[in-house]
């Protein structure tokens, strides 16, 4: 029941990993592709806007110039029409409304742009008026700009710009100054700009706007292209992100599998090393047993004719018994070392536990290496509640490393110290120490400075994990040729 659940959660976890990778790849690729694209688009868009504005401006300028010329020509024509009426200037001295009406009709037959016609005297008074706005008859034009200009100026005619005037409608005024018999008479005609424009348009050959349409097309096209590009880019990004995520995912899964296999191999190597160590510890007393038993057999063998005393035999058998218990000691300690897997909290004196290791499992190794063990135990340290099996494994590992680092005679100092509700356990050796490079890697799995086959490089990493698991910390100080010092800090009560 547990296994399928495990698989399902595993699959779900893998799914999450894949999704995470995909999201990551998508974001990265999007930024990678679209940021430059966006910047380029913005840049070209701005450039384009400037170009369009310039083109538009010159186009309008051209148009205005062209229209002005057209208007000038048109108004010139109209002025000529008006001039035609002044063949006999004396008729303007006492202008009659009916005559004016006729003239207006004549003018309008030439161009409908003529709205009305009037005759003014030198003081701006209207002498006669023909047209749709009779109230203008009573107006006086003395104050009008065009009037003063015409009366004062040398020119005999004036054409105004479009203005509102008394009638409050846009119009041109064109006026002629005549002086029959010394009297000043002004013939004024008003031209409607709307009609003028309509008439001008009829004459003007339609000029195609210079590229305006094309530019506008480009504007819409750019957005269309951008949209298309984004669509295609998005598709490409999506596909590529999926591909990248898939690759990374497979690599990760492979790496996990490899790690798992490596872990397995490391465990096997550890077992192998342990087995070799155990073999040595057990084979030596077994060899004693074998030799002593053989000796007793030989002594009792009539062929050798030794006739041993029972005291001699008892001595030999006693040594056999001792050797057997040496083996038992080793197996028992080994079980104590291996057994604990789950955290098993017990209240025990750490000092007794350390002594047990130093005088038990490690005694022969320390003796062989001519290593002196100094103990600086804190007498105030109470019994500790922790997983002593695991702590024992850590201390054993530290002591073994310390012993291995010492060549020739040396000293290992084991110290404990109570610090509030925690305590420290320090193992210091007079061995060869470590370089700063080695020091950095010392807790990494598989890192070892020992010769091939002498160490798995797992001891310290496992120890580190155990101490962290027990709510503590592990630290190291070391320098080449100055020995190493490992400090384990743990709570008094787990």
């Amino acid at each position, binding site marked *: 029941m547990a296994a399928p659940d495990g698989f399902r959660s595993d699959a779900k976890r893998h799914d999450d990993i894949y999704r995470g990778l995909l999201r990551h790849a998508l974001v990265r690729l999007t930024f990678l592709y679209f940021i430059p694209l966006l910047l380029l688009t913005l840049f070209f868009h701005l450039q384009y806007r400037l170009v369009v504005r310039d083109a538009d401006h010159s186009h309008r300028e051209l148009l205005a110039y062209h229209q002005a010329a057209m208007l000038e020509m048109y108004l010139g024509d109209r002025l000529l029409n008006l001039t035609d009426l002044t063949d006999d200037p004396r008729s303007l001295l006492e202008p009659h409304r009916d005559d004016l009406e006729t003239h207006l009709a004549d003018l309008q037959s030439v161009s409908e742009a003529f709205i009305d016609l009037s005759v003014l005297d030198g003081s701006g008074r209207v002498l006669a008026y023909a047209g749709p706005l009779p109230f203008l008859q009573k107006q006086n034009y003395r104050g009008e700009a065009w009037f003063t200009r015409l009366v004062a100026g040398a020119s005999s005619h004036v054409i105004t710009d479009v203005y509102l005037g008394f009638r409050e409608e846009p119009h041109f005024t064109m006026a002629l100054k005549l002086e029959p018999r010394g009297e000043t008479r002004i013939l004024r005609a008003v031209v409607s700009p709307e009609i003028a424009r309509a008439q001008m348009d009829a004459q003007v050959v339609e000029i195609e706007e210079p590229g305006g349409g094309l530019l506008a097309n480009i504007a819409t096209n750019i957005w269309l292209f951008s949209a298309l590009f984004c669509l295609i880019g998005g598709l490409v990004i999506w596909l590529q992100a999926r591909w990248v995520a898939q690759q990374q995912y497979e690599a990760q899964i492979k790496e996990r599998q490899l790690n798992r296999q490596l872990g397995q191999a490391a465990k096997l190597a550890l077992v192998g090393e342990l087995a070799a160590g155990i073999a040595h510890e057990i*084979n030596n007393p*077994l060899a*004693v047993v*074998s030799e002593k038993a053989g*000796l007793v057999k030989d002594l009792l063998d009539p062929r050798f004719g030794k006739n041993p005393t029972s005291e001699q035999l008892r001595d030999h058998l006693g040594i056999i018994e*001792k050797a057997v218990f040496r083996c038992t000691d080793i197996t028992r300690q080994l079980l104590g070392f291996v057994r604990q897997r789950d955290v098993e909290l017990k209240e025990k004196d750490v000092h007794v536990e350390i002594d047990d290791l130093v005088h038990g499992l490690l005694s022969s190794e320390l003796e062989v290496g001519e290593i002196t063990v100094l103990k600086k135990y804190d007498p105030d340290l109470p019994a500790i509640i922790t997983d002593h099996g695991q702590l024992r494994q850590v201390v054993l590992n530290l002591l073994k490393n310390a012993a291995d680092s010492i060549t020739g005679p040396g000293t290992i100092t084991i110290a404990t110290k109570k610090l509030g509700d925690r305590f420290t356990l320090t193992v210091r050796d007079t061995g060869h120490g470590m370089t700063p490079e080695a020091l950095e890697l010392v807790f990494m799995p598989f890192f070892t400075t020992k010769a091939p086959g002498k160490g798995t490089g797992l001891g310290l990493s496992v120890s580190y994990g155990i101490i962290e698991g027990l709510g503590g910390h592990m630290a190291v100080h070391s320098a080449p040729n100055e020995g190493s010092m490992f400090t384990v800090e743990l709570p008094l009560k787990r």
Partner: protein
Amino acid sequence: MTDARENKIKLLIVDDEIDFLEALGERLEMRDFLVRTVANGTDALVLCDSEKFDLALIDLKMPGMDGQELLARIKAEHRFLEVIILTGHGSLGSAVECAKLGAFSYLPKPYQLDELLKVLKDAYAERLKKKFAADTARTRELLKIAQEDSPRGTLRRMKELDDEER
């Protein structure tokens, strides 16, 4: 008495495990070996200089000078002394090292006594073979010198070759 000593194979046993050392020594004495036992490498080297041994049994793991170092130093000074390494350790790495240094054999502890006796016999045979070959070569050399050199020079050279045997 001198004859009896001369007829026996002279064997040196080096092991830090005293109980083992004594029992094995006693049993091999019963089997007509002339046995000397020491508990460390330094004592073994001293003894090798004062006495001539045919064979040596050396434990690999000992405090101070270990078996491998002792093997190398013995082989450097006494090339006809055949060494058999004993060890309780199961690894093959040290066996290869010892073979390179000139050990005749490598025997894991504990062993059957017959096994040890067979290895000792083979080691002694090896020693005789090498010694015989060396003796033949030396005899040939001696004869050559005797034919060529002046009597005084010949005598001095022959004495040198005779001393080389150790």
